[in-house]
């Protein structure tokens, strides 16, 4: 029995309970109300000046009715009891053919973790503080090399205040900070133009710049990548041995296994991982976990958007498929416990299973040794993004920094390429895993069914014996 204080809601609890009763007036398993206020600030910096500043406030509530695997959602940005009541009536349409069974439950506070302590809160900082970070970043990128001709920077921060109540009487609230610095640089050599980019941040305040990566480091990295691309030569095309560097290569896991292991796709039989629990889907060197529990990480959450606590969900253990990431509906249908992966982009969206921070556990190999083991191949270090067809399992990810490996040594830098493979096939071809697990620090955003979510990822150095490289050289 929890004795914690009931978190405050934007509207009196009795109005919420009345709306929840209206939501279930035609029937349904449960209903919930998701209140959100999002306050954001963004500064863009270009041509050595503050180019524009923007500020946004969005506030609203979504009322959801769930019946089996069916959901009704109605949302409003007018936070009054009348408006909420109308949303509840609209959302109840999903359950039109069933029987009402409204029970009232006493309100109960749902405890939440505290994974994002913020010391230098952006919302308490004046705009001049932000400008100073941008100026530092800009100077560092320009000082890196005289061939850097353009630097574009964006510093964005937002604060989401979420509060939630459902028909079981469960009430919780969370305040989610997010801060991201993005840097891109263009390098020119005669008429040759090349680009580089990097980003950093997380659910953290401006202390991030002192403790983890300074504006100089982030912008300097964008400049380094742009200059490196000036020397890059076209990559080979066709099947090659590829060594994936630590951290950023986690995008491989995100695309090759992550999306395919979201429970909604699996309960519907849409994923090529459907009905394969207990089967081998990767090499025995691979253990893959999704965990929203790391302090201040971009994909971390104190509680998911349905009130379930995120855990450390083992997806693949020693190459064997162990479980899926689920939301409330999938957990109930698959008769398994909720993993805390039910996330919604905003009050105007339905929750669905989403990744948090997806990573592979460290292995035994020395990363240097992994590179030395390759006679001819590609070493990939920084990535742009990826995409997957979850049904067949084909995925791509684009490489923004890579090198040719010749006789166990990194030689020429290569132009940007895409790697393509089939999830289970590529995962089975991972034949060396390094000791050096690292997490990305980039501003990764994952898109699914039109909803964007901040995510994290991590991986040690791994060797894939063969994957198709999309270069221009035959």
């Amino acid at each position, binding site marked *: 029995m929890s004795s914690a204080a009931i978190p405050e809601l934007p509207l009196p609890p009795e109005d919420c309970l009345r709306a929840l009763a209206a939501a279930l007036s035609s029937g349904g398993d449960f209903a919930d109300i998701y209140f959100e206020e999002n306050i954001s600030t*963004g500064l*863009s910096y270009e041509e050595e*000046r*503050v*180019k*524009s*500043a*923007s*500020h*946004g*406030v*969005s*506030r*609203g509530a979504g009322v959801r009715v769930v019946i089996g695997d*069916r*959901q*009704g*959602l*109605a*949302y*409003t*940005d*007018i936070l009054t009891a*009348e408006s909420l009541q*109308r949303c509840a009536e609209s959302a109840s*349409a*999903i359950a039109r053919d069933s029987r009402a069974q409204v029970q009232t439950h006493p309100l109960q506070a749902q405890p939440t973790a505290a994974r994002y302590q913020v010391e230098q809160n952006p919302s308490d900082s004046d*705009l*001049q503080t932000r400008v100073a970070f941008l100026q530092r970043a800009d100077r560092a990128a320009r000082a890196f090399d005289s061939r850097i001709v*353009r630097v574009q920077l964006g510093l964005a921060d937002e604060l989401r205040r979420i509060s939630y109540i459902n028909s079981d009487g469960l009430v919780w609230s969370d305040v989610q900070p997010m801060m991201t610095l993005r840097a891109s640089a*263009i390098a020119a050599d005669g008429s040759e*133009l090349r*680009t580089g980019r990097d980003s950093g941040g997380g659910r953290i305040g401006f202390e991030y710049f002192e403790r983890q990566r300074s504006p100089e480091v982030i912008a300097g990295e964008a400049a380094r990548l742009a200059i490196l691309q000036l020397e890059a030569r076209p990559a080979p*095309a*066709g099947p090659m041995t590829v060594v994936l560097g630590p951290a950023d290569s986690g995008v491989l896991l995100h695309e090759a296994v992550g999306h395919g292991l979201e429970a909604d796709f699996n309960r*519907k039989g*849409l994923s*090529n991982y459907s009905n394969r629990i207990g089967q081998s889907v990767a090499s025995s060197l691979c253990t893959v976990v999704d965990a929203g529990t790391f302090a201040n990480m971009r994909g971390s959450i104190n509680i998911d958007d349905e009130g379930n606590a995120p855990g450390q969900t083992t997806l693949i253990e020693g190459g064997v498929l162990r479980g899926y990431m689920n939301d409330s509906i999938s957990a109930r249908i698959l008769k398994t416990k909720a993993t805390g992966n039910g996330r919604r982009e905003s009050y*105007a969206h*339905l929750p669905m299973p989403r990744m948090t921070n997806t990573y592979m556990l460290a292995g035994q190999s020395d990363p240097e040794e992994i590179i030395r083991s390759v006679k001819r191949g590609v070493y990939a270090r920084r990535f*742009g*993004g*990826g*995409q997957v067809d979850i*049904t*067949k399992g*084909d*995925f*791509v*990810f*684009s490489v923004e920094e890579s090198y040719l490996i010749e006789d166990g040594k990194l030689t020429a830098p290569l132009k*940007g*390429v*895409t790697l*393509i493979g089939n999830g289970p096939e590529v995962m089975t071809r991972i034949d060396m895993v390094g000791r050096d697990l690292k997490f990305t620090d980039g501003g990764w955003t994952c898109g699914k069914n039109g909803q964007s979510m901040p995510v994290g990822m991590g991986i040690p150095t791994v060797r894939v014996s063969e994957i*198709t*490289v*999309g*270069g221009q*050289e035959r």
Partner: protein
Amino acid sequence: MQTHTETSTDLLGLAGDLVQRMQRRGVDQAEAIVVESKDFSATVRLGEVEALEEATSRGLGLRAFRNGSVATSSSSDFSEDAIERLIDRLLEMLAVGDADPANGLPEADLLGPCSASVDSYDPSLASLSAVEKIERARRAEAAGLSSDPRIQNSEGAGWSDSIARVALANSLSFAAEKQSSSVSLSLSLVGEDQGVKQSDFWYNTHRFLKEIQAPEEIGRRAAERTAQKFGARKVKTQQAPLLLDPLVARRFAQMVFGAASASAIYRQASFLTQRMGQRIAAECFSLIDDATLAGAPGSRSFDGEGVTSRPLSIVENGKLCANPSDAYSARRLQQKSSGHAARGLRGQPGVAPSNLMIAPGKSSVEQLIGSVKSGLYLTQLFGMGYNSVTGDLSQGAAGFWIENGALAYPVQEITVAGNLLQMLLSIEAVASELDWRLGATAAPALLLGPVTIGGE
């Protein structure tokens, strides 16, 4: 107080009032946008309604200029004190912004709705009931699931529609409102053959309900596209000509628009920098954007800054002849806005197309396939591997292999790599069919010269 079900807010009055309030607080120029939209969507999966979503939402966006700097703010809260706080914040942001002589509203003589009557709203949508909408999604899925025994599963058929009113006002006495509608019907199917799952989709989206194909047609196309993928394989790594399906050619049109836009050119962040008046594509390639096109899905009488809509030739017979722009990027190139500002509630306007099209040619797609001895009919490009600064492209690909002028077998898990400028210059033929039901960009199939294909 506005109600949930009726649109009764005086948006134009509110926008004008917001502009005056900003002016009273001492800004040099001000602009306000107020939006109200009614959205509905339904997903039907395996005959059951899986999700229903419904909402009426509102928002306002402010933009102000002072001493050469610019700031924007947006809010969904229309209350007096919320607006006052929003303007306070706007003034704080103006104080940290740096001066830029190119900042400012468009010149007054560019403003106003165009004289052609541009129809962007379909009143028949409002009278269609939720039950009828759900029924259309159900029919599309049923048709898709009944056409091939190997296709037994579905990701769902989706219906969505939106009716929006937008009012825009600025301190140069511009004030206008436009109403628009959009509707889409889509279906994504999953089939299995010899232990391999494949999925594909089809969709239609438009402003006008009558343009959307019959649900059974959407279902049939989705099933046909899914079934065609069975038995897909890789091909050898090689160089071969590419025939772009209209779905892929649309992406090419958008890439060229983006690279030609004034916002990319003034930054010198485009492979089309310094190429005005030069040949950047084969002579059979022309790219036009026309916001005044009757009955098209992206038509509008003025752009996101109030600039009058007019047609613009971007590439004519292979020559780059215009940079689509908004007020800021136009000034950076010593030009006037071409009327291509797109503005959401948040942030600065950007440059975006309205109705964008690659001018159709003379051949049918079948004739183009017939002309290829050995090559790739490209139906899908995926991943992020396109760099608009260099034009370099390396993406995942899927399609059909063409042998001796006929589609031989489906192809998957390969890459296509090349440079967009070289690809545009290598265009050999443009097909004649143009479809406006896939969105506000329409492109016929394009036959390109050889590119590198990464496979086995």
